[in-house]
């Protein structure tokens, strides 16, 4: 006969106001198997926990039921308390009298009766509980970082600096992401590439970082501490070991008319190319969609020009399998293209460009070496109109959310225009100026006060071409909605930041949640901002929502701290609530008949099989075997097993049936 203790908590007024707590404790005393019962105002407090500990010693209790709030809240607290008193943690159960009773019912006798029933269920369960020990799972002490923009770079460097191995996967041929495309950065106007490229070099030289560019995550399986990842390393057609980055091949390529994606389509590149001059790694890639050789024509000029014979036209994609303990998602964003705006010309007016294209014009490494020109005729624009909130905060045709970075970079763009061309006129149409951040509002005021940028509050209704000018029709809501018309040479849309292309597929491979817009969802918006909904997978940067560089770097370092905390342990303690196939004496060995239906049904690939052999090695029986490290305790196999050979520790059939029968 077991000796159980029942502890009923008032939770202040939370339970006490609707449930007669003293009555519950009194009635519990008479339940068979209960040796002690009492109530207390706050059991989770230190004195409350001490009461439980004292009672365990005083009454020689071998099991405890705490009737209090949800076990999600304080189960660990109470389990720790009973462990301190010498009991096994899993000999303590929580009856949820708050969420399941007092909060959802009125004060009444029937409410108290329900509370007593809830306690009775747990009493019957604890009677059948067996001591369980936590499962220790070894951790693979290395990390995978997906995305080689500033978020991924920062996270990878921080993890690598702490002494752990990092594998970095970048989809494009070079590191840097969008930050490498920017000209100057707000609010300091320091050169983006100048502060970024040293970090890119750090990544490539770091002894703890394995850099895989032009590669994508193909497949992910496993769980926290033990992920198995297949990475597709796409064929560059250039041998990375032989290539010296001399650039001879680039000069000889006869295909010169491929839109340069690094320059946002504003210039042309060859079929064999390095995205930009400071690219890391400085190894060219052959764009097989545009290379003559791959279009069935005769051409091997690049191969002939190569002094080290590094061009390999027969290179194939490679699948690289790695094992890591943690994953950081840092896949960034993309901007909404001009073709998404019907009233601004559907992308048909060449001089209506995106903010990212303006960055390329303003950048010294861009198509015009930093001179701001317009795409249609290459002339320097005199009047430029900037439209904030292009697609953002537009529930009808764009996205509902604020893209956050546009207010600041629009001020920067207008400022850069005025700095490069003193006679130019800059107009900004805005709805609100959102410039919260260190030195941010000062920066916007500087654009208005010192550089004379004209800010007009209102959205632009339409843009059309007339006599070589773009007519921008807006209204000034600060003048009571008075129509404003500006003849512009160029219009820059601060277009909305969207989840990067391929984000949805990657999220599915990783089993991480996304928000309604397609951004990676955080585990908790306030308290767990860099964790995803899957344990062991973290996030950093604009893949979560649009954010600027300082925020991204801060978040990347935070994600890295989480990863290093995880990797600093050699083992991970897991709850022992896993399924097990029973064993019996010979000749039965087990109720399992070896049908192995459970093997295919298991969502975590945790079930395999084992052969039971006699002394001479003859196989007597084949039975299912569950890997406790992989099992998540979902119970699918338990309900499926035809011979009831599988039981879930902590939730055995016997326990569940006893609970039901007690009612």
């Amino acid at each position, binding site marked *: 006969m077991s000796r159980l203790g029942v502890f009923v908590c008032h939770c202040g007024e939370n339970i006490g106001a609707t449930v007669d707590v003293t009555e519950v404790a009194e009635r519990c005393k008479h339940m068979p198997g209960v040796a002690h019962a009492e109530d207390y105002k706050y059991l989770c407090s230190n004195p409350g926990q001490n009461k439980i500990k004292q009672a365990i010693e005083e009454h020689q209790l071998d099991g405890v039921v705490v009737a209090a709030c949800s076990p999600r809240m304080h189960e660990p607290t109470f389990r720790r308390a009973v462990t301190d008193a010498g009991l096994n943690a899993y000999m303590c159960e929580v009856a949820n009298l708050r969420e399941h009773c007092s909060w959802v019912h009125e004060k009444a006798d029937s409410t108290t009766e329900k509370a007593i029933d809830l306690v009775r269920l747990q009493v019957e369960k604890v009677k059948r509980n067996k001591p369980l020990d936590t499962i220790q799972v070894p951790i693979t002490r290395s990390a995978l970082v997906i995305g080689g923009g500033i978020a991924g770079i920062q996270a990878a460097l921080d993890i690598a600096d702490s002494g752990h191995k990092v594998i970095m996967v970048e989809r494009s041929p070079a590191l840097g992401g969008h930050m490498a495309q920017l000209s100057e950065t707000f609010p300091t106007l320091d050169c983006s590439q100048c502060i970024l490229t040293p970090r890119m070099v750090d990544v490539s030289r770091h002894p703890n970082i394995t850099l895989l560019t032009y590669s994508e995550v193909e497949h992910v399986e496993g769980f926290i501490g033990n992920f198995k990842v297949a990475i597709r390393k796409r064929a560059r057609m250039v041998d990375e070991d032989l290539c010296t980055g001399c650039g001879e091949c680039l000069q000889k390529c006869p295909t010169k008319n491929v839109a340069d994606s690094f320059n946002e389509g504003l210039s042309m590149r060859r079929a064999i190319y390095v995205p930009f001059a400071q690219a890391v790694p400085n190894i060219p890639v052959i764009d097989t969609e545009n290379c003559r050789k791959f279009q069935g024509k005769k051409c091997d000029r690049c191969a002939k020009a190569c002094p080290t014979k590094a061009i390999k036209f027969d290179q194939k994609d490679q699948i690289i399998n790695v094992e890591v303990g943690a994953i950081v998602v840092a896949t960034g964003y993309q901007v909404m293209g001009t073709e998404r705006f019907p009233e601004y010309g559907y992308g048909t007016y060449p001089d209506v460009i995106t903010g990212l294209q303006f960055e390329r014009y303003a950048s010294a490494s861009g198509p015009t070496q930093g001179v701001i020109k317009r795409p249609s005729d290459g002339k320097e624009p005199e009047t430029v109109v900037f439209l904030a909130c292009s697609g953002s905060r537009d529930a009808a045709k764009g996205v509902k959310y604020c893209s956050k970075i546009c207010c600041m970079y629009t001020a920067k763009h207008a400022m850069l225009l005025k700095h490069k061309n003193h006679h130019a006129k800059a107009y900004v149409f805005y709805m609100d100026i959102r410039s919260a951040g260190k030195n941010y509002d000062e920066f916007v005021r500087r654009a208005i006060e010192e550089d004379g940028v004209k800010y007009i*509050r209102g959205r632009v209704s339409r843009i059309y071409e007339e006599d070589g000018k773009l007519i921008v029709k807006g*209204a000034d809501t600060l003048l009571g909605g008075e129509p404003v018309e500006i003849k512009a040479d160029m219009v820059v849309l601060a277009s909305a930041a969207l989840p990067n292309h391929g984000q949805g597929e990657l999220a599915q491979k990783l089993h991480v949640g996304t928000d309604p817009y397609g951004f990676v969802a955080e585990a908790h918006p306030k308290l767990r901002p860099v964790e995803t909904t899957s344990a062991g997978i973290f996030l950093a940067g604009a893949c979560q929502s649009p954010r600027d560089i300082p925020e991204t770097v801060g978040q990347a370092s935070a994600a890295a701290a989480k990863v290093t905390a995880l990797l600093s342990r050699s083992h991970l303690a897991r709850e022992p609530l896993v399924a097990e196939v029973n064993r019996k004496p010979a000749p039965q060995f087990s109720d399992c008949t070896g049908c192995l239906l459970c093997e295919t049904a298991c969502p975590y690939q945790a079930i395999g099989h084992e052969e039971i052999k006699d002394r001479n090695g003859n196989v007597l029986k084949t039975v299912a075997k569950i890997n406790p490290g992989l099992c998540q305790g979902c119970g699918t196999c338990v309900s499926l097993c035809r011979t009831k050979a599988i039981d879930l520790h902590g939730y055995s059939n016997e326990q569940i049936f006893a609970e039901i029968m007690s009612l």
Partner: protein
Amino acid sequence: MSSISHHDRQTTSLANKIQEVTGVALQNCYQCGKCAAGCPVAGDMEMPSCQVLRLLQYESPDYDRRVLESESIWLCLSCDTCHSRCPQTINTPKVMYFLREEAVRQGLAHPKSKDAQAFHKAFLGSVARHGRLHEIGMLMNYKVRTGHLFQDMTLGSKLYQKGKLELLPHGVKDKAAVKKLFKRTTGNKE
């Protein structure tokens, strides 16, 4: 709950009536001004559409009256540019129609709206009688109502020469059904 939600707004306000009758939620307007920016007649309005909506958002009797007495609501052409471009999909033309009806109901319609009202009456009168529009009949009716007897006469003769205007009305067969329709929608007022 201490905060003011749309559940406990004052029920007599114009904004509330608009939501009830037209389904347009004026609190959704965030005053970006895109409607006024694209409006072909905004320049002629003493207050463009975004300001009309702003005044209604206050839900104050004084501002409601100012809107109903304004000429702006009569100038709207119902071209739907504002509605099709509105980031919050607010159906401003529908609101304008409602405001005109309300202004007439309350006897607050702007003096300059007389012609517009006369046209509406002449148009609907013709449709009520014949089941479809009889242009010449409607024009005559309009001219008598407004006194603009010789306006657009040259245009009228050109239209007639091109066969755009018929002397006699071509009514629909089931006039009783049309009568029933009008009775149901207007409550037998017109």
